[in-house]
């Protein structure tokens, strides 16, 4: 498989799933060309609803559709979607409405558009709700499977998708399961937990570290909530050092979730890599370099963390 943005894989998967299940509908707020549901709308015009630039109403309408037997995918940029947190909190979460929330354009990786368009706090917000799982797939294969799972999931769920292309990290035999992390590369000196857009960079960093004799174990945390505690604890127990890498605010995201787990169950030194402060405009590569999320930056941080 070639590199592909998870938003693109999502859009394609949804068309296939839509052919099999007519309950699937999409909701957009004037960003269907960006969230990649525009082709679904072309294929199934009577099942695609663009409510205009009105995300709160999009979410509420999705809740009503879900509560009357449809399977609605409510899609927008992660920042605009989760920005309507209060509607998600009451109309979706508290109502236990099985809405499939899809947030695209996550993190500084969107680049030139700048901070106001970057999904940077969405994990922190959704994590605080008791009943919405968070899934961040890392490549086309995983995205397709995660979307198919979202259709089957009996409650609300949040999919966190990228604008940028993602290199394949999985072989054909991979099977996504909610709440299951995977050891993509075994190692003994340090664990690196990542998902989505930062997973490939973490694998690249592990290769660089290996050349210097540091064996990094790379974990794919595709489900950020609920965390696969067993896999994380097993890895941390083996390596004794945990690094988390995410394109999200340093507060409340994957790093926060992993640190909370380890602090309570098995205190382990943790280094969180992510975005501090606001994002900014720039080319995505340059932004990743600036924030230390590219393979070189991750390698540097891991070395420093290990004093090697």
């Amino acid at each position, binding site marked *: 498989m070639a590199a592909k943005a998870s938003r693109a894989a999502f859009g394609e998967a949804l068309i296939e799933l839509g052919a099999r299940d007519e309950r699937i509908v999409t909701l957009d707020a004037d960003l269907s060309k960006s969230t990649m549901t525009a082709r679904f709308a072309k294929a199934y015009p009577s099942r695609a*609803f663009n409510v205009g630039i*009105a995300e*709160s109403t999009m979410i509420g309408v999705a809740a*009503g559709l879900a509560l*009357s037997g*449809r399977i609605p995918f409510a899609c927008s940029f992660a920042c605009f979607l989760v920005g309507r947190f209060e509607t998600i909190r009451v109309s979706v979460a508290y*109502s*236990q409405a099985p809405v499939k929330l899809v947030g695209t354009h996550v993190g500084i990786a969107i680049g030139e558009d700048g901070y106001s368009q970057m999904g940077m706090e969405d994990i922190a917000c959704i994590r605080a709700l008791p009943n919405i799982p968070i899934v961040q797939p890392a490549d086309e294969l995983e995205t397709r499977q995660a979307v198919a799972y979202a259709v089957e999931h009996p409650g609300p769920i949040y999919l966190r998708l990228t604008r940028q292309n993602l290199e394949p990290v999985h072989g054909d035999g991979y099977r996504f399961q909610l709440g299951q992390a995977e050891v993509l590369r075994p190692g003994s000196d340090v664990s690196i937990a990542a998902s989505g857009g930062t997973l490939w960079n973490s694998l690249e960093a592990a290769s660089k570290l290996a050349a210097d004799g540091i064996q990094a174990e790379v974990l794919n945390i595709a489900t950020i909530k609920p965390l696969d505690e067993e896999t994380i604890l097993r890895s941390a127990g083996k390596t004794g050092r945990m690094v988390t890498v995410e394109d999200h605010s340093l507060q409340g995201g994957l790093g926060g979730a992993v640190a909370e787990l380890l602090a309570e169950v098995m205190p382990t030194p943790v280094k969180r890599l992510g975005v501090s402060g606001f994002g900014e405009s720039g080319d995505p590569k340059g932004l990743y370099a600036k924030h230390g999320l590219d393979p070189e930056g991750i390698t540097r941080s891991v070395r420093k963390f290990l004093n090697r």
Partner: protein
Amino acid sequence: MANLDLARLQGIARKCRVQILRMLTHAGSGHPGGSLSVIDILTTLYFNRMRYDPERPDWEDRDRLVLSKGHCVPAQYCCMAKAGYFPESQLITLRKLGSPLQGHPDRMMVPGIEAATGSLGQGLSIAVGMALGLKLAGKSARVYCVLGDGEIQEGQVWEAAMSAPKLGAPDHHLDNLCVVLDYNGIQLDDHVKKILDLEPVADKWKAFGWPVLDIDGHDIAQIDKALDQAESLKGRPTFIVAHTVKGKGVSFMENEPEWHGKAPKPAEAIRGIREIVGEPVPSWVAPVISELEQLEKK
């Protein structure tokens, strides 16, 4: 709906008013003013309009009610208990630890509640989605949404207002949706006119593409007629402006902002209940009064 038995419906509304005062007094908190202003609307919906089956709250063909002004859920609980969703004896557990009767509606705890509301401004969007979902499923069921007047200061209401007359077109016009505005003129802080006047409210909804009906929200015959008209209007959802009195039926609560969110003391509740039922006190009210007298002594 045919065979409007006004006396029966007025009797139910009167009983519900008594129950509202009773349960709020037991709870020691809650929202009497808006519960009393909306009860004639809810009574008409529950007992002369909506198709539902308390034995099967998830019956797919049921009509739906989304009480967007969720703080007035005591009024809905009274109707639901009367309809048989749960025993009337449970009403006085309102807001108590362990009771399913939450201070604001909880869909999971009370079967028959269609959506969690109470965070104002959200209910109409949900109702629009339900109306659309029913149309897509080929169901003839209807969706009712009750909005508070202060509530429509929320921007999300106007997003949904803009959307509903157009969403679903051309195959699935949302003429299965009927929205009722409980226009009692008072919100938490003060009179709506003093906080943020809504006028001209009917013109605003008309401009957004809604047929608007204007009624006295305490006249059950008028409410029922408007619901009839809404049902026969094809192609668009209907908006009913129901002019109401906050605290209706209890003289010292009527049109008083302080009774938006304050529970009566037992003596006040007894006074209110006596006003509602008149003289002589009916036999079913006597035990309620003595129960509240006991509460007073505690």
